[in-house]
């Protein structure tokens, strides 16, 4: 870590040795920006690097939104810069750009969700801690046996481990985002919002989504270009790809729709029902029908439901990112990954 700034500075000098960017690189960057609808530029000189750094730091002043994250990544990600400057193949730069946009969105929602989940796991730990402490005191007064005590103590450690895992997930998800954003040093201490963006009020049915994808998909453009140069075999590959693209759009929309419904059911039903369960348990506690341990274990179950609700909302945002990628390119389907990468169950405290 100590040597990193120096190392980067040396590299930075090397990268910016050229006086100006090649004309090709500038035009590629311009076409990429036009295609993805996000501003970008070629960093070839110190002045350009300073300008980008300034824009990036201005964007990092407030907690990051998904759109700001994409803007920062497209400006600042050095792998994309390398593609611009290589510029031998315009389509490669375009594919790198759409892949970066999609990857940044995914990393953003993963990072915000993981951080939010860790907050709930902290509450679950507080509940397990209260249970363990009450049981310890109860045992001291002769009101609980060793079995109760060791069970409560063991539960506390399990929930503490859930929190450790949750915090690790949050750290790893954030690092993935940091890499996409191309940040290091003090810039890597950017702020994320406390919660994921809310579910939209409605999910609009995209008219002509398949046609739009056929028109915009970067990989299809590359395949069309190949047909011009390679002939019949490439024509078959183009047609096969077009069929896949149409299917991918439909699959991505189906995923988006079900993710929306699941997230909405969590928001409108599961979470309020869990709140009602918590209330009813407190009423039963008030009536001395159950004791405080039942209250605490119910709260842990509700926290787990809240974690599931966050994950469902995250899955919706991931599905939306994937749907956008299905229209333009950069989706994980192409690379053979699952459509919605689902993080491990983090709902601890059962």
């Amino acid at each position, binding site marked *: 870590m100590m040597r990193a700034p120096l190392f980067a500075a040396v590299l930075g000098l090397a990268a910016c040795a050229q006086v100006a960017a090649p004309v090709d690189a500038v035009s590629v960057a311009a076409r990429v920006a036009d295609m993805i609808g996000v501003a970008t530029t070629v960093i070839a000189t110190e002045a350009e690097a300073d300008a980008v750094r300034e824009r990036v730091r201005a964007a990092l002043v407030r907690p990051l939104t998904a759109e700001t994250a994409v803007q920062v990544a497209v400006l600042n990600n050095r792998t994309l810069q390398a593609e611009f400057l290589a510029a031998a193949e315009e389509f490669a730069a375009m594919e790198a750009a759409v892949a970066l946009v999609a990857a940044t969105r995914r990393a953003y929602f993963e990072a915000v969700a993981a951080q939010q989940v860790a907050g709930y796991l902290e*509450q679950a730990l*507080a*509940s397990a*801690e*209260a249970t363990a*402490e*009450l049981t310890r*005191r*109860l*045992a*001291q*007064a*002769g*009101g*609980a046996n060793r079995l109760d005590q060791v069970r409560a103590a063991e539960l506390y450690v399990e929930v503490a481990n859930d929190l450790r895992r949750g915090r690790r997930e949050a750290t790893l998800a954030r690092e993935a985002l940091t890499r996409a954003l191309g940040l290091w040093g003090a810039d890597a201490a950017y702020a994320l919002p406390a919660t994921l963006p809310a579910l939209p009020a409605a999910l609009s049915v995209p008219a002509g989504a398949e046609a739009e994808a056929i028109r915009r998909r970067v990989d299809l453009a590359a395949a069309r270009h190949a047909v011009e140069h390679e002939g019949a075999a490439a024509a078959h590959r183009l047609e096969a790809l077009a069929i896949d693209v149409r299917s991918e759009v439909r699959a991505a929309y189906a995923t988006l729709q079900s993710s929306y419904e699941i997230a909405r059911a969590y928001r409108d039903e599961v979470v309020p029902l869990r709140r009602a369960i*918590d*209330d*009813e348990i*407190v*009423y*039963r*506690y*008030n*009536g*001395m*029908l*159950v*004791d*405080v*341990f039942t*209250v*605490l274990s119910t*709260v842990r179950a509700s926290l787990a439901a809240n974690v599931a609700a966050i994950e469902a909302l995250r899955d919706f945002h991931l599905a939306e990112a994937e749907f956008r990628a299905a229209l333009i390119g950069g989706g994980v389907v192409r690379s053979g990954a699952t459509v919605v990468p689902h993080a491990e169950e983090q709902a601890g405290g059962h």
Partner: protein
Amino acid sequence: MDTKKRDEPAPVSRRDLLAGGVLIGAAAVSGHVQAQAIPEAPHMAHPTMQPPLFPTSGPDYRPVVTLNGWTLPFRRNGEWKEFHLVAEPVVREMAPGMRAHLWGYNGQSPGPTIEAVEGDKVRIFVTNKLPEHTTIHWHGMRLPNGMDGVGGLTQPQIRPGKTFVYEFELRRSGTFMYHPHADEMVQMAMGMMGAFIVHPRDPAFQRADRDYVFLLASYDIEPGAAVPRVSEMTDFNLWTFNSRVFPGIDHLVARKGERVRIRVGNLTMTNHPIHLHGHEFAVTGTDGGWVPPERRWPEVTADVPVGAMRAVEFEATEEGDWALHCHKSHHTMNAMGHGLANFIGVPKRDLEPKIQRLVPDYMAMGNAGMADMGEMEMLLPDNTLPMMSGQGQYGPLEMGGMFTVLKVREGMAANDYRDPGWYRHPPGTVAYEWTGGAPTPPRAEGPAGQDAAVEVQVVRRQHMSGNH
């Protein structure tokens, strides 16, 4: 007895003909005849004690007062007293704030008390408005076997919508009850029962100035629900006098010096030691008959066995507010948990803020006992009574279930059953706090485990220094 006494589950026209023949000798089939044939079935909408029904003809008797209940009016028809019971679903207020969905008779559970006189011929119409068949068994009565009301054994069950007629002569006076003997477990768990009092033909025999009656029933109604869990066998959470629990049970009142009889029948599945404060009584009767005076002995608690009745009598010589309750302490509680940890001696106030961050409405309770419950008003599940509640002139009563008060007062009017309010104790007759000094008496040490509790340690140090 008449030959035409059974209301067959047959077409309406035939039933009307038969009933009409018996009751008014008319053969015409019309609504008018029907209305005359079957006496009205009075309906009771209130769970409060109704005034006693004094006899207007025939032998004189002291009518009973049914706690939180009433006596069924009858119609005289020749030598018969005719009653009409309607078995039906009812909503019974068990105490203010809790309404149970039960089955009962004529609007309430328990059903109305039937009162008649030894030697009377009674004709009891029973209409079934339940969703399943029923019968009525006249517990303790000597009667023709075919009137005993045991479904399948002595009669076909009364199907929904049908009316049956029971006819018998009351061969002995005493304390009886009625309840179904068809799907009996379910129907009694749902609240179907009533008292049946047969007064002696000789008004002087076993005369009492006040005569109270109630039946013991137990229900298991999940907190927040309204219908009893009929499959429960032991773990009931509502122990009732006449399907009422404290603080919803009427007070008993007596003028100082009156002879008071209290009749109790037990249709729960466990025994109930019914205890009266401040007086000795004798069991003067059971559902088997009157106990001869020379066979009685003094008691302050009468254990009422399952499926049995006890009549106790005493002279109300002591003024005051005297508790009358089942002596099983859980039976003077309303719905409560039985699996709770005992937090006595466990400090937890300091954890309250921590738990409140998770559960904003949480309050630490039970550190010293459960009396918190009687003092605090907190949100409970819907339709659920506090485990203990009630307020007396000196503070919370901390009771529930089978608990009420006998109020003995000087100078009450003979038939005045109104609540006279709390007893005004003569000066100097109420337990009082000692405010003078006294040496700390030696006490046993508490359990070792409680040393950890700081407040307990402080107390221990104090008395230890006094000891050594």
